């Protein structure tokens, strides 16, 4: 499959003759080049894990966090261009707190995922869009700007976000896991993976019996998968970053406790050695 657009890929507002928007597909490639990010839904919560490729030995361990809490009950792991990811996380946090202050309850994860997807999608469109902190009805605001831009000829260039996001949260309808792609598409999953090793990771996730697994066991499994898909030849070092939101964490999104994290890393390394030994 030729991935060269040849003239139809210069702008995100151009369709190709066979109905593709190449800029969005290229944005997805930026995500594919990033370290693997995994999310799984266990029976009592969500576990997120990131293979954080270390660019230089001078970096402090624990810096450049890839997993962020967006609200008390939910967290988001980002893959792709870090700066774009920062923007999405900031917007998501803002959406979550705004919903809470208007409606008086934590934002349902489904609603949050829809808003993230809506935001990501909007930024694949051409107009210059100004977002106010209090605005949460994008579509209404967008229609305003249609009139404005046509009258004032306010053109700005725009590219899609070069990052994909896995959003996991635990609300009163139980734990839920969503993934949002750079095109703005969002689906609910019981297991999701993006980044370099996603194919291998997905295969591994499918082998797991997630409905019987607690998050404690899930953490070990995620660590094993990430260590398993890490390519020793191409990428040197990586740091494993994990978070969870489950009954054990009191339905709050938080880093996996250090003790459990060490246990998971040890188990993952042991599993790797076992594989190598075969």
């Amino acid at each position: 499959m030729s991935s060269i657009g040849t003239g139809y890929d210069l702008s995100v507002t151009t369709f190709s003759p066979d109905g593709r928007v190449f800029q969005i597909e290229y944005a997805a490639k930026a995500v594919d080049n990033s370290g693997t990010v995994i999310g799984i839904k266990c029976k009592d919560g969500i576990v997120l894990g990131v293979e954080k490729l270390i660019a230089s030995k001078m970096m402090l361990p624990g810096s450049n966090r890839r997993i962020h809490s967006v609200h008390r009950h939910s967290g988001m792991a980002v893959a792709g261009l870090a700066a774009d990811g920062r923007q999405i996380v900031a917007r998501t946090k803002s959406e979550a707190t705004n919903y809470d202050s208007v409606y008086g309850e934590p934002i349902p994860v489904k609603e949050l995922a829809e808003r993230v997807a809506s935001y990501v999608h909007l930024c694949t469109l051409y107009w210059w869009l100004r977002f106010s902190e209090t605005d949460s009805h994008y579509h209404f605001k967008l229609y305003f700007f249609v009139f404005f831009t046509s009258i004032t000829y306010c053109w700005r260039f725009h590219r899609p976000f070069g990052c994909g996001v896995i959003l996991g949260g635990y609300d009163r309808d139980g734990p839920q896991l969503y993934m949002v792609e750079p095109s703005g598409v969002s689906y609910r999953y019981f297991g999701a993976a993006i980044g370099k090793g996603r194919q291998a990771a997905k295969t591994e996730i499918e082998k797991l019996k997630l409905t019987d697994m607690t998050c404690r066991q899930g953490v070990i499994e995620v660590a094993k998968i990430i260590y398993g898909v890490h390519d020793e030849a191409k990428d040197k070092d990586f740091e494993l970053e994990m978070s969870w939101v489950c009954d054990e964490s009191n339905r709050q999104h938080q880093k996996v406790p250090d003790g459990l994290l060490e246990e998971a890393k040890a188990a993952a390394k042991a599993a790797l050695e076992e594989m190598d030994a075969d």
Partner: protein
Amino acid sequence: MDQKMDFNAPHSMGTTIIGVTYNGGVVLGADSRTSTGVYVANRASDKITQLTDNVYVCRSGSAADSQVVSDYVRYFLHQHTIQLGQPATVKVAANLVRLLSYNNKNFLETGLIVGGWDKYEGGQIYGVPLGGTIVQQPFAIGEMEDEILKNHCSIEHCFPGSGSSYLYGFFDQAWKEGMTKDEAEDLVKKAVSLAIARDGASGGVVRTVIINSEGVTRNFYPGDQLPLWHEELEPQNSLLDILGAPEPMNI
């Protein structure tokens, strides 16, 4: 009569409004008198307004203010329900009411009781009195802070939720946890009727709304069917009924 009757004074609902939770839902009750000064503008008004299928609100204070607040909240809740894909919770409805009441407290004069049923928390009652506080209670009767009213209300106004002050003692004695639906409705009916007997700003009929998992039931109890309390007189027939209608004059 010394007092001038000002028919253009703002319509106020002196009012008795009550919200009570029971085992399985809530019962909301209200009287039906809307007054302008001492004139009863509407003796059969409906003070219990629908916000969504499962959430209703009892209105008191300025009739206009409470109607406008209910209309806005109904509109927001409608949009919210569509976005959410399922019925809104009572807490969300009450919070929207509270935000409007609080953020516009300098302009509004309305006390509201939000009550309803949702699948997560069951039956709930939230009181949203004058300043825009929100308090969840097992039962709510009109205002909590009458002191504020005394300071800023002039004589022509009626205190929002005035009738309810007469009920605190009654509820202290009669309220109990975990009532059945019929017990709760009887309690509400009795309470409103007691308040009507003593409060000049409350009167007319008693309306109740019962909300539970099965849905909503509206009931109506006309004034002449309510029990008579201490020193209340039996209704008298009007002389017009006794003597018959007079013959039209021939000129």
